């Protein structure tokens, strides 16, 4: 935007420079020239129906009357907002409005301002209700563009034009979000729904409206969730070398643009509108590709609707070395249809591919599959085999932890190598972020209670892209705070996207931008609105910390709750193979020099890798020590009895269990 030429606009003698396509109305606001309007709001597209915002513009060919709310600045122009012609036009329009709605305040106020007295004709439809609907259409606009629902709309034509729900009355498709009520300038809309008994429905709605407002105003500038969903991440990750490519070996690839969000946004997401998980969700990150024709499997040739793809599905394809959007849709559809998790699938297959490339697997062992990176057809065959429980699918379908055991046991593969490149923790395959250079995310994956998934501590972005947690201490703090905070969403059954996917415009200026304090406060109000219990941010955290520790103890009981279970494969920490190191040699070399204190010049790649490994493994262990301490856990990762007590969950069987493990 910054490289665009600014255009000079003169409004009532005041000069201002604006970007092309700025409206005259917006330009006027910049120089504090007020233009009257009834149908305009920053929350919706200009509608230009009240016609009160008319001004005269002159682009060198004489003054013309135009509506300022939608007149785009495309070249230098002079604007007059108070000429005789403008004033006369406004007065007539106000007279017409006043004739029909003589008691509606916004109209009365404006009429008074422009000295419009009594209408000079008797309007046959004159409506003396002070809360009459004046047909400005703001509710219609906000329902369709803001809430993405389009339940409130106009009906009829001409003087029969009204605002209505389909067939009048209440409508089951209206979620009662209240956006139309909030935007209505005459209080003509009332909420009549039964909102399922929250303690304070208005508080809930106000909190909801804050989310809606930010989604409308800020999403396109920040995450573009409404247009492309989480796919917007793919470019960011690729640019920052964090996108897994070929079983997490690399973090970017030249062909990624072929499966980029732009491709899906423009070519495939054709539902016609953003889609939400539930009616009225204004985040609407869900995407779908309609009418996709399948080319393999039991539904070959049929046209189907494919949900997604989301970021993880796209990145999973890159992790298998495949950059073909049609493949992405095909594997996504069949994973969904078979009930197979696309993340575990793609990570498992990526691992199998690497095993194939380094000779642990061969066509005989895969029963004919040439499972090299990029082999899209083979991947789809394997997916169908997995679903049927046949051939190599029977082995790969059991996941990485099983494959590691199986390849070692049956093919005599190098156990250490398998451990290094088999990307799983606690038996769960890694989700799609490269963590080699993000210590915080290494901990985020390794310590996550459910295994190597990012929902508990998705720190890679704040660590490597936003640089919000630069120091070791910051990372430890983040690994304490975020898993607890994020657990709160699950605890209350709330979506976390409105928390930090779109942030208030002034969030970067707050003390702790990573925590998005204003939004945490909004969640407090949601909680209070529903339960009636006033809560502060720390209260929410305490609820959650209690749950988090409870879950860790549960893990412990199931045999997964100690330090040894928080171990990660080395590829999570650093380069395993030569090629991996050498492809980013500059970065690793300077790290050796600056952080490890080893002079890499003259060293062989093997030696450099060994030095780096030693350093990184040590750093990871130090991280575990520090985080455990912060969480009130023992060095072995077991919650101390004291911790349980302070959280109020010192139930005897819990305390006995942790004590048995030294806690």
């Amino acid at each position, binding site marked *: 935007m910054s490289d665009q030429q600014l255009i000079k606009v003169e409004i009532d003698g005041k000069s201002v420079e604006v970007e092309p396509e700025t409206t005259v109305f917006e330009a006027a606001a910049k120089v504090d020239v007020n233009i009257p309007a009834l149908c305009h709001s920053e929350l919706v597209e*200009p*509608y*230009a*129906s*009240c*016609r*009160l915002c*008319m001004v005269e513009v002159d682009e060198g060919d004489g003054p013309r*009357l*135009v*509506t300022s709310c*939608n*007149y*785009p600045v495309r070249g230098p122009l002079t604007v007059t907002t108070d000429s005789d*012609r403008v004033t*006369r*036009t406004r007065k*007539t*329009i106000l007279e*017409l*409005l006043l*004739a*029909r709605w003589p008691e509606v305040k916004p109209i009365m106020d404006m009429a008074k301002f422009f000295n419009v007295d009594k209408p*000079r*004709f*008797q*309007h*046959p*439809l004159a409506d003396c209700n002070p809360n009459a609907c004046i*047909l400005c*259409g703001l509710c219609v606009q906000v329902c369709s563009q803001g809430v993405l629902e389009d339940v409130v709309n*106009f009906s*009829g*034509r*001409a*003087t*029969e*034009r009204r605002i209505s729900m389909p067939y009048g009355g209440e409508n089951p498709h209206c979620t009662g979000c209240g956006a139309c009520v909030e935007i209505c300038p005459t209080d003509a809309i009332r909420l009549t729904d039964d909102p399922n008994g929250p303690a304070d429905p208005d508080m809930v709605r106000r909190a909801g409206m804050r989310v809606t407002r930010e989604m409308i105003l800020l999403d396109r500038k920040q995450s573009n969730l409404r247009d492309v969903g989480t796919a917007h991440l793919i470019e960011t990750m690729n640019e920052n070398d964090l996108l897994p490519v070929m079983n997490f070996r690399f973090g970017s690839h030249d062909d990624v643009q072929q499966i980029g969000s732009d491709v899906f946004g423009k070519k495939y997401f054709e539902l016609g509108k953003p889609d939400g998980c539930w009616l009225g969700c204004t985040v609407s990150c869900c995407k779908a590709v309609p009418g996709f024709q399948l080319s393999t499997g039991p539904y070959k040739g049929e046209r189907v609707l494919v949900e997604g793809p989301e970021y993880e599905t796209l990145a999973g394809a890159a992790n298998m070395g495949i950059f073909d959007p049609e493949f992405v849709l095909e594997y996504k559809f069949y994973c969904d249809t078979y009930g197979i998790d696309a993340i575990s699938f793609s990570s498992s297959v990526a691992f199998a591919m690497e095993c194939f490339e380094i000779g642990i697997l061969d066509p005989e062992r895969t029963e004919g599959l040439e499972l090299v990176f990029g082999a899209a057809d083979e991947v789809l065959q394997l997916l169908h085999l997995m679903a049927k429980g046949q051939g190599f699918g029977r082995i790969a379908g059991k996941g990485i932890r099983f494959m590691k055991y199986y390849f070692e046991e049956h093919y005599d593969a190098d156990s250490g190598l398998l451990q290094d490149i088999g990307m799983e923790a606690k038996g769960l395959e890694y989700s799609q972020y490269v963590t080699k250079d993000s210590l915080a995310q290494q901990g985020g994956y390794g310590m996550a209670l459910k295994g190597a998934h990012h929902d508990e501590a998705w720190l890679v972005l704040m660590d490597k892209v936003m640089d919000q947690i630069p120091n070791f201490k910051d990372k430890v703090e983040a690994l304490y705070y975020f898993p607890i905070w994020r657990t709160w969403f699950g605890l209350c059954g709330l979506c976390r996207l409105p928390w930090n996917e779109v942030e208030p415009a002034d969030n970067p200026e707050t003390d702790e931008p990573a925590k998005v304090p204003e939004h945490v406060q909004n969640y407090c109000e949601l909680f209070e609105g529903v339960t009636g219990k006033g809560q502060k941010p720390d209260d929410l955290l305490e609820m959650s910390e209690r749950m988090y520790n409870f879950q860790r103890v549960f893990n412990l009981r199931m045999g997964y709750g100690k330090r040894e279970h928080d171990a990660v494969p080395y590829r999570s920490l650093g380069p395993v193979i030569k090629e991996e190191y050498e492809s980013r040699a500059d970065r690793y070399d300077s790290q050796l020099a600056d952080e490890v204190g080893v002079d890499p010049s003259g060293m062989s790649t093997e030696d450099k890798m060994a030095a780096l490994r030693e350093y990184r493994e040590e750093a990871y262990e130090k991280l575990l020590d520090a985080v455990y301490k912060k969480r009130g856990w023992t060095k072995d990762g077991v919650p101390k009895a004291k911790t349980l007590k302070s959280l109020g969950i010192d139930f005897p069987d819990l305390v006995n269990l942790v004590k048995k493990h030294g806690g």
Partner: protein
Amino acid sequence: MNIEELRKTRDEIGKRRERYDAILMVCTGTTCQARGSLALVDRLENELIKRDLTDRFLVVPTGCLGLCSEGPLILVQPEGILYTGVSEDDLADIVKQHLLQNNFVDRLLYRLEGKAIANMKEIPFYAGQQLLSLRHRSTLNPEKIDDYIGANGYQTCYEVITGMEPTEVVDTVVRSGLRGRGGGGYPTGLKWRACREAVEKTGNHPVVVCNADEGDPGFMDQAILAADPHSVIEGMMIEAFAVGAKEGYVFVRKEHPLALRRLSKAIEQARRKKLLGVAIFGTDFSFDINVHRGAGAYVSGESSALMQALTGRPGEPEAKYVHTTERGFRNMPTVLNNVETIALLPAILEKGPVWFSSIGTGDVSKDPWNGNTGTKLVSLTGAVKNAGLLEVPMGTTLREIVFDLGGGLPEGSELKAVQLGGPTGGILPESQLDLPLEFDALSEADCPLGSGSMIALDETTCMVQLAKFMVGFLKEESCGKCTPCREGLVAMDVLLRKIASGEGEKGDLDLITEYGQTMTEASLCDLGRSAATPVVSTLRYFRDEFEIHIKDGKCSAGKCRDLISYNIIADNCTGCTVCVEACPENVISGEPGKPHVIDQDGCTRCGICREVCRFDAVEVR
């Protein structure tokens, strides 16, 4: 279909036609159909079969022949003998007398001042016409693509597609001076050029849209579509080639089933012959046409409303300061032209811009705005003898159209005014009738040409009532989106009703003018901006009549009910009781044989008594 096949079909059709002694073209235009002309086609065919004459004579259901007021019409070709007002009972005579004995059926011939005129070309209504968009009138069966090919159809688009550069086509149309026939009068070639520029700028695919959402009057574009649908298809192909479009859309109302059916059939035929589809004529030009069957709403003909309606949204105008050529249908660069404009294209490309611009007025060699070239369709209706559809060179005076072609008004009536351009058009008094049929001249007279509708009004027309009707029409047809149009029309309606009921006040006319100005300047779309035109032009030319209503409480035309009364002239009344029977309010009393009396208290002034009276005994005061 390649060019050899096309030429072969053309030659065969010509030869086949020559085999017949005569071809009977039965008009199946909307009006003749309403009068039963489809049954005539069947009966005539049966008659020929019965007499075993099918080898010698051919019956062709053809498109509108134009002289609708005289229908049903049958034209006997190649002689060109026109029969009017034909009923099923007349068919046997046509076959026996005309076809077999070569004697015209005198009673069915068109008559001018009592004298029969047999040959169509000699009837003044037809003699003054020049046919371009209707150039296949009375020559082909609109449901047969071979007939169109036989009339040299699709040859021009072959020459264009295989022999010209798209920009050359655009230049040709610019130089022809062709201006949009939908009413705006924007030079068609310049519109195409703007579209090409938008495509270059945005990289988006262009779309061509044919606007057949004809409102009121609704029979010009429909007549072309129903009479010669392939000329519209060929025109759209030329248009698409010129701007680089692969997709075309035609928006036709459901209210015009005949046009819809024939166009859909024609498109199917063209697809089967591969004149539409991929790689047309073996070139890399691909194009296909989709038909949208719209629901009728006057406002939906407005261009931005049409773009909405085409995508399945309410047909409501959209406020935007971006041309449709840049962002129209599905936000693609869109060329929107009306049917008549498109139907002119094959002729322009075949015969060249110089030929086209030699018809009509002005020198457009440098600037298409500087003239009114070619011909224009006119629907001439109202109080004229010959009502129907005609095509004349632009620049023809309105007087020539009403009096020479239209035959003037019936005996005893006088022309008071003509109404031009449909409900958002204007009124011109008789004194302005020497104005030419041109976009600019008529706009300057506050009476835009519009789509070319012309209604002759006689002295019984009350201008206040007419203005009230037009405002009432628009008040109901406004979409209601923007304030000036929605509420301004209500205000005008209120004031005109006041005047019509004799309660008008000094200043009301100025108030109407003031509201009208705001509507014109501040409304959102073209409908709103032109909604005041009828009233503005009526006030400009007939202000006196309005003032008489206000000052004297009188309606000279005898139409404003609050200002008139119906009275029985005792001297003329024979006491036949017909009016007593007919009066819906039962307020006429009287015995048979004695003059009747109307009780003014209960009379609603519906006028039925006057209508049923055979003795001119009811007068309006």
